[in-house]
């Protein structure tokens, strides 16, 4: 059964998603248990695959038994395997976390919510695992459609935000498809490995240049890179908290993963770096994204919206890291993908708890949180320190590699941008800590008491435990970053 593990990672969530509307009819909590079990088994198979990749090297899996250029092939190397564990693990944590929040926000739609939730995860896993550019498009659409639906059922204004996402997301997917079409017409192949063999002979061709540009622009739309990020803040702010906790960490990172795949596997690294000066453009776009995201995050009064702009800045980190284009910076980028999934998950988990207890998510709702929910706030402090980049947490190490790479490449403006963004994060989060401490002040400032009860009312356990796990993970990844880099990420860095 071991050699079938790669297929099972995707097939199990797919089969269970299809079964879930039927299973959901049995009882009230069955849907929740079903999702958790599904994702747990998917995570187990992802770990098995990761272990196989670490011990035996790249794993190939042929769908239907056909040879690669003719059939569809899974190619799982270290980068893939890491992303698989990350996606399925993060989805499992979100699923564990979702119970109370879904019951509160969508009481009569839990069955269909969990169905679409599983389909969303299936889409992400399918994108990450595949070795075929068109198959990637199909699963990109599965993930996008599920994402549109998950966002549209949020609070007031969510359908409009979701509609904007539909329009821009479709443009992104169509640009990707056009890029694939342009590649297909000159090579006749859709398999990534085959393409990367065929393309070097055609690097001067105008068709290939245009295809590359369209692939990158399409993915930039999906990953909300700065000038194209307009759909993101509204969509993730207004989505239900479980949906934003699933989408916000994973959607952008999966798109960044695909970008790495396109730039360094389908095209050879020297094409992306030397023949076309794409990386220079990406460096500058990344820097602008970091500044813009950080400054706009400062201006927000809504907690979730502030987090959305932090995501925009984080996307800037990773795109800029690829733009620096040396091995250390790309190592930092891949480590940052890992860290950012965990950190963003933590932030949105806290946002979900805030929404659950206060029914809204303004910054002022944090009032007296240290008194009311000490454990949640302790977890939040750890996540915030990681976002800022304080040493024992994981956020520090990826930033360290990014800065180290930038210094070696002489990209000082990128270093400045990173430091500036860390500084802004300090301001953002210490402002929240301050709000969390003050609770008598409100009485004086507004003239009436917001009936801040001083009794400890911790969040429900089903929400608290995943949040604490995330906080522990952040510290663990920070402490064990060397083994992770040596075992996995070192091999995932493309040979430049």
């Amino acid at each position, binding site marked *: 059964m071991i050699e079938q593990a790669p297929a099972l990672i995707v097939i199990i969530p797919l089969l269970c998603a299809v079964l879930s509307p039927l299973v959901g009819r049995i009882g009230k909590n069955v849907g929740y248990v079903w999702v958790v079990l599904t994702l747990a088994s998917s995570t187990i198979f992802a770990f098995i695959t990761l272990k196989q990749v670490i011990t035996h090297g790249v794993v190939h899996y042929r*769908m239907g038994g056909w040879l690669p250029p003719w059939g569809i092939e899974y190619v799982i190397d270290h980068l893939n395997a890491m992303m698989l564990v990350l996606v399925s693990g993060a989805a499992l944590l979100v699923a564990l976390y979702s119970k109370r929040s879904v019951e509160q926000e969508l009481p*009569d739609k839990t069955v269909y919510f969990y169905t679409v939730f599983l*389909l969303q995860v299936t889409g992400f896993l399918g994108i990450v695992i595949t070795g075929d550019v068109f198959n990637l498009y199909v699963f990109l659409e*599965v993930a996008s459609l599920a994402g*549109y*639906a998950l966002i549209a059922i949020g609070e007031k204004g969510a359908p409009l935000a979701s509609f904007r996402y539909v329009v821009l997301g479709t443009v992104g997917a169509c640009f990707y498809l056009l890029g694939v079409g*342009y590649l297909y017409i000159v*090579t006749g192949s859709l398999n990534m490995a085959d393409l990367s063999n065929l393309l070097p002979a055609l690097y001067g061709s*105008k*068709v290939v240049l245009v295809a590359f540009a369209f692939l990158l622009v399409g993915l930039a739309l999906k990953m909300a890179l700065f000038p194209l990020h307009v759909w993101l803040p509204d969509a993730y702010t207004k989505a239900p908290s479980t949906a934003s906790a699933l989408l916000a960490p994973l959607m952008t990172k999966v798109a960044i993963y695909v970008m790495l795949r396109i730039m360094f596997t389908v095209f050879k690294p020297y094409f992306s770096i030397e023949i076309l000066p794409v990386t220079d453009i990406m460096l500058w776009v990344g820097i602008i994204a970091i500044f813009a995201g950080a400054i706009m995050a400062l201006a927000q009064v809504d907690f979730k919206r502030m987090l959305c702009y932090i995501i925009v800045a984080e996307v800037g980190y990773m795109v800029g890291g690829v733009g620096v284009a040396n091995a250390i910076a790309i190592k930092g980028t891949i480590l940052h993908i890992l860290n950012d999934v965990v950190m963003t998950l933590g932030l949105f988990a806290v946002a979900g708890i805030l929404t659950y207890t206060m029914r809204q998510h303004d910054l002022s709702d944090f009032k007296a949180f240290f008194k009311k929910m000490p454990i949640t706030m302790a977890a939040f402090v750890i996540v915030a320190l990681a976002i800022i980049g304080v040493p024992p947490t994981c956020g520090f190490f990826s930033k360290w590699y990014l800065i180290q790479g930038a210094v070696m490449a002489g990209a000082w403006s990128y270093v400045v941008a990173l430091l500036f963004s860390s500084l802004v994060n300090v301001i953002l989060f210490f402002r929240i800590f301050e709000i969390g401490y003050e609770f008598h002040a409100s009485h004086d400032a507004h003239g009436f008491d917001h009936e801040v009860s001083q009794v400890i009312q911790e969040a429900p356990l089903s929400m608290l435990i995943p949040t604490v796990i995330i906080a522990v993970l952040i510290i663990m990844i920070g402490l064990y970053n060397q083994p992770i880099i040596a075992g996995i990420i070192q091999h995932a860095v493309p040979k430049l």
Partner: protein
Amino acid sequence: MKVLGFIVTVLTGALLIYGTLDMPNYGDPDSPASSHVSPRYITDTEIDTATPNIVTSVLADYRGYDTLGETTVIFTAGMSCILILRRRKKSYKV
């Protein structure tokens, strides 16, 4: 918005047209698209799958996983529509 949209559209179109200049001619039987992967489908479909309609055999067998994805897309759309629109009596009356 209209002017901006027009400019973006024209630029994108110009880029796409620039790309077509190096393309194989329309209807060229020896273009890479028709000579790299697809000949195997045409010659072997009867031997491999006993199905004369090549599109069907490629769709459901050689690239069957794509079609599974396609079916999943359709299923997702159905579930999404139910999730977005359908309301129960109780929540509607409120």
